[in-house]
């Protein structure tokens, strides 16, 4: 993966304009009848740690050699007593 491909489009601005968006607390229910808190952490982590676009390019901060999923699951298992005491 290169950050300077042939025929690269001209960089319009540097630093790139970050357009502020309306940032406000979400008051609506995420999906019908399902508040965020009710989403089980374990279901969330299935997706967040094993899903999503994975970038391995040089632009990202290197977590090379770190198996995110493995690390996190180990953390979960070792903290299982903590988890079990949650409502």
């Amino acid at each position, binding site marked *: *993966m*290169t*950050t300077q*491909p042939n025929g*690269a*489009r001209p*960089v*319009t601005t*540097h*630093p*790139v304009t*970050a*357009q*502020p*968006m*309306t*940032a*406000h*607390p*979400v008051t609506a229910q*995420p*999906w019908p009848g399902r508040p*965020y808190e009710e*989403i*089980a*952490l*374990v*279901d*969330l*982590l*299935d*997706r*967040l*740690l*094993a*899903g*999503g*676009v*994975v*970038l*391995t*390019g040089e*632009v*990202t*901060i*290197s*977590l090379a050699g*770190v198996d*995110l999923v493995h*690390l*996190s*699951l*180990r*953390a*979960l*298992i070792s903290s*299982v007593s*903590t*988890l*079990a005491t949650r409502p």
Partner: protein
Amino acid sequence: MTGAPLCYVYAIVDAPPHHLEVCPGVDGAAVTTVERGELAAVVSLVDRDRFGAESLRAKLEDLDWLEQTARAHHQVIDTIARQIPVAPLRMATILWDERGVAELLQANRPEFTEVLERVRGREEWGVKAYAVPVGPPDAPPGPAESAGGPGTTYLMRKRGQRDRARQAVQTGADLARQLHEVLTGHSVAARVYPPQDPRLSGRTEPMALNAAYLVAAADAESLRAAAARFDSPGLRVELTGPWAPYSFAEVSQP
């Protein structure tokens, strides 16, 4: 904080993201977009000390941090998914600065576009199924059984429980395979996750299926109905969603 903040990237969306409303992100930071061409990255600034590679490594072992970050990451993506097509990034994708984000958009334009096209107008649904032992409840020991002595009765009862549990796993696995086949028929893509650790799920029954399905929004109802038809005393079927398409965002590595 020492040094400039880092850029946490949540997701890629079509640019310009008109009227997109987003909740605060990780650590309560304001969420903004960085645009390049037809793509925009949804980002927020994070503390360099706390989100640098080294502290991340340590943080990933911290369940409270992991949960907070996961929920914040999810809230941003979930809020977007209810408004426009979204390609979620793996949790804790962190770049040095906004210029890096713009380069990322440019360097991965075909991959990001491919993911956005794949998920456009579609929803992810999660389906979990548990094999539950079914059968007559343990009969109280009658006179005939008692004849063999209390030890024998106990052993026979234990063996009966064990056999039923084994059978349930077998039947559950068969049913779960059928369920997966049927749901795949309703979907444009399917992904099977490993069964969740019972210590994390808090469920004692063996997990016979842990899968995600990408369906056209219009087909979500038929997927739900199909999953519900498999829900039985021997196979508890649970549906979650709709999710942002986390499970269907893989890109083919260049």
